[in-house]
């Protein structure tokens, strides 16, 4: 599968122009060819790139997909969003481990297989799903896992596995202007060149386009400010990190409408005067890389990228794809830029924002995949056409990624302003009890609020729409999200580094039936600290799932409270677990009796 000889470090480093800014890409290639990133490689890389080893180790140890120990010839990572769990992930994982005689998080004795969990991989419409050596396999069931187990036992190289295992349908259930209309590559660029850059910016402004990545910042304002900012070079960055659990609409746009996205980036480049652009593609979407590279190649051939685009002498622009390596925080725009510069993905101090000080401290526009797709459409069809859709504060259409308890999970494109109830009817979710809008960092709404609307002025969303039926335990939903945030906190600031782990521990304590009302207040207290003092959006929102479910589904918590006042966190019997494991005992006398 690999393009490199085993650990041809000089070759890999040369391919990335000996530039330490490309360290994340270099480490990805090292791991793809060696299977691991061994300690001595860090020293060799330090010499080749002429940077201190400690910097390389910082980066290598930050990303979840990099590891120094061998994960064998087959690394299997089960997606662990609550949607995967609802679809039977835990049982299937256990089934798979038993078939291959292995334990999770332990390399098999023959050194062949390693099984673990990973954060949501962007396939909630086809859950449960997993990654095999970084390539996504959706819609798991016993028979598909049997097949995978056989292929592994036969030690078949991944390239020879049946392609149907890796087939990922788009599941576009309700098409719209972005997902349903044909687009002729070059159409938006031709319109831009004919109209001129000022006028194109004015169209984006007239369209009232707002960012689709979550925050909803006005795109024209961002572009105009970047265009004005002085710098040695300007950059365009497409945020394709799509790490929010339950979101997968960017996956579909990139799979089937990549021209629209690349064209939007190129229009932006023309407006701000950029010559280089990046797509920061989450590592979990590695399966899309080849296809995207071929679309880029086709666009270069058609003179839609490269030198003198469409014959315009002063219009040079090209796009590189960089892959992430398992870090949700790299969706935050300044952490993304740090990652593009080869560093751990830790959010910067802002201001200054990227529009003035982004990639290599130069003016940079960072926009979501869908935002660029909208921009291309606007450049082609005009701002008025776009603004005619949606509501006054939320113009245009919005892609929604629907998953969970419904008959037709997939991507739905609506005009902004659609009610939650309408989405539920369309996807076949008669039994819905709660919806998590915009993922764990978004809003949990109960059945009492289904008339609320998807729009910036009501339920702002980056696209996730996870449906939970009456049977689901909303406490467990929140607990899953709490684990997610604790795992994904970058660790830079005190409140989030410590607070997310404290929250996770308290939720686990409640799950073990050892919680009290004191713990509930404690979680509210931690939420208050996170909201006020955390450094970035991850920390600000990390307690939302707990606090919102506590408020909207109190019975899910009350059921679990052992005492109403206080219950110590230290579990005497639990402390003996290791001793039981070592001695192989689990009889009555190996347990401490619970006090009545």
């Amino acid at each position: 599968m690999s393009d490199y000889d085993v650990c041809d470090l000089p070759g890999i480093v040369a391919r990335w122009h000996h530039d330490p800014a490309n360290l994340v890409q270099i480490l990805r290639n090292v791991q793809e060819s060696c299977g691991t990133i061994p300690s001595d490689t860090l020293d060799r890389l330090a010499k080749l790139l002429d940077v201190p080893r400690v910097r390389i180790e910082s980066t290598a140890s930050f990303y979840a997909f990099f590891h120094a120990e061998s994960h064998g010839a087959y690394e299997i990572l089960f997606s662990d969003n609550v949607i995967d769990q609802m679809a039977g992930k835990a049982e299937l994982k256990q089934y798979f481990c038993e078939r291959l005689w292995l334990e999770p998080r332990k390399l098999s004795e023959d050194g062949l297989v390693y099984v673990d969990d990973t954060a949501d991989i962007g396939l909630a419409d086809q859950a449960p799903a997993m990654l095999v050596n970084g390539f996504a396999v959706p819609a798991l069931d016993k028979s598909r896992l049997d097949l995978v187990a056989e292929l592994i036992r036969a030690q078949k190289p991944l390239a020879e596995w049946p392609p149907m295992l890796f087939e990922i349908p788009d599941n576009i259930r309700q098409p719209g202007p972005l997902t349903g209309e044909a687009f002729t590559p070059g159409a938006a660029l031709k319109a831009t060149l004919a109209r001129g850059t000022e006028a194109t910016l004015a169209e984006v402004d007239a369209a009232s386009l707002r960012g689709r990545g979550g925050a909803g910042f006005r795109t024209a304002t961002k572009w105009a400010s970047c265009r004005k900012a002085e710098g040695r070079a300007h950059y365009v960055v497409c945020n394709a990190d799509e790490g929010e659990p339950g979101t997968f609409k960017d996956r579909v746009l990139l799979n089937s409408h990549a021209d629209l996205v690349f064209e939007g980036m190129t229009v932006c480049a023309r407006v701000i005067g950029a010559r280089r652009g990046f797509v920061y593609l989450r590592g979990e979407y590695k399966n899309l890389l080849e296809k995207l590279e071929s679309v880029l190649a086709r666009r270069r051939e058609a003179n839609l990228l490269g030198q003198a685009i469409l014959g315009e002498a002063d219009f040079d622009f090209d796009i590189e794809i960089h892959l992430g390596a398992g870090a949700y925080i790299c969706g935050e725009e300044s952490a993304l830029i740090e990652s593009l510069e080869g560093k751990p993905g830790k959010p910067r101090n802002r201001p200054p924002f990227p529009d003035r000080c982004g990639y290599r401290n130069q003016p940079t526009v960072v926009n979501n995949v869908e935002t660029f797709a909208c921009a291309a459409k606007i450049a082609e069809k005009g701002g008025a056409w776009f603004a005619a859709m949606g509501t006054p504060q939320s113009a245009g259409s919005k892609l929604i990624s629907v998953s969970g308890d419904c008959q037709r999970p997939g991507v739905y494109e609506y005009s902004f302003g659609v009610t939650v109830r309408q989405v539920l009817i369309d996807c076949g979710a008669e039994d819905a009890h709660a919806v998590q809008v915009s993922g764990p960092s978004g809003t949990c709404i109960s059945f009492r609020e289904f008339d609320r609307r998807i729009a910036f002025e009501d339920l702002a969303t980056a696209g996730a729409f996870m449906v939970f039926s009456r049977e689901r335990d909303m406490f467990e939903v929140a607990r899953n999200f709490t684990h997610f945030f604790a795992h994904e906190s970058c660790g830079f600031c005190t409140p989030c580094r410590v607070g997310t782990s404290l929250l996770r521990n308290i939720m686990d304590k409640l799950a073990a039936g050892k919680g009290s009302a004191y713990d509930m207040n404690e979680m509210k207290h931690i939420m208050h600290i996170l909201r006020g003092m955390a450094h970035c959006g991850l920390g600000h929102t990390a307690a939302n799932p707990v606090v919102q479910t506590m408020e909207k589904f109190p019975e899910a918590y009350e059921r679990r409270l052992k005492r109403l006042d206080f219950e110590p966190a230290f579990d005497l019997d639990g402390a003996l677990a290791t001793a039981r494991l070592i001695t192989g005992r689990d009889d009555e006398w190996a347990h401490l009796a619970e006090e009545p």
Partner: protein
Amino acid sequence: MTKTFTLDGKTIPFEEGETIMEAAAAAGVYIPHLCHHPEFKPHGSCKLCTVNIGGRLGAACTNQAAEGMKVESETAALNADRLALTQMLFVEGNHVCPSCEKSGNCQLQAVAYHLGMLTPHFTHFYPARDVDASHPDVLLERNRCILCELCVRASRDVDGKNVFGIGGRGIRARLIVNAASGRLADTSMSVTDRAAEVCPTGAIIRKRHGFTIPIGKRLYDHHDIAEVPVAGIERPKRD
């Protein structure tokens, strides 16, 4: 005319480009902090210096002062939140003050006293962290590290050595050193480095000097941290 803003009602002059923390320090006003040090580039990670800037919370050490800004710092609510952050720092590591060489000179301990911390409040994590005694002159006691990155900045920006860095992420973040062995002895660290003396806690300690000043006679044994001007805290000279 000098520009000014107000801090808890007091008028504070500032120079263009100065942070709230710098201007406050120059005016002799203490804002609790741990990762800030006037000689180094602001970092903004401990969040102890969080203040209310015209209704919005932000770190005083990274937010620039602006004309007419209204900043609140010494409020009961903010100090309660700072206390919680300090407690988080305590439970995240292993801080055994009575047996620590730095006790009495430690800023973490001193801030805790200043904020009236009586208990750690949160459940201890009791993490397993490595102690590195390999270096002949410098002890690295990671149990006491609060990840402020002052040693990282000092070694990189002043000593020009890059001895320290942060590895891992989230609650597993840890101090790492520039050596394949992971041992401080195998780095270019020298006891005369700036990085050897910036640590606000007892995580980086000069060996054989731990008790030259007896406990009870140390800096914060007699002064609240708010009264003690940290060396170099005056307004940095500009040309």
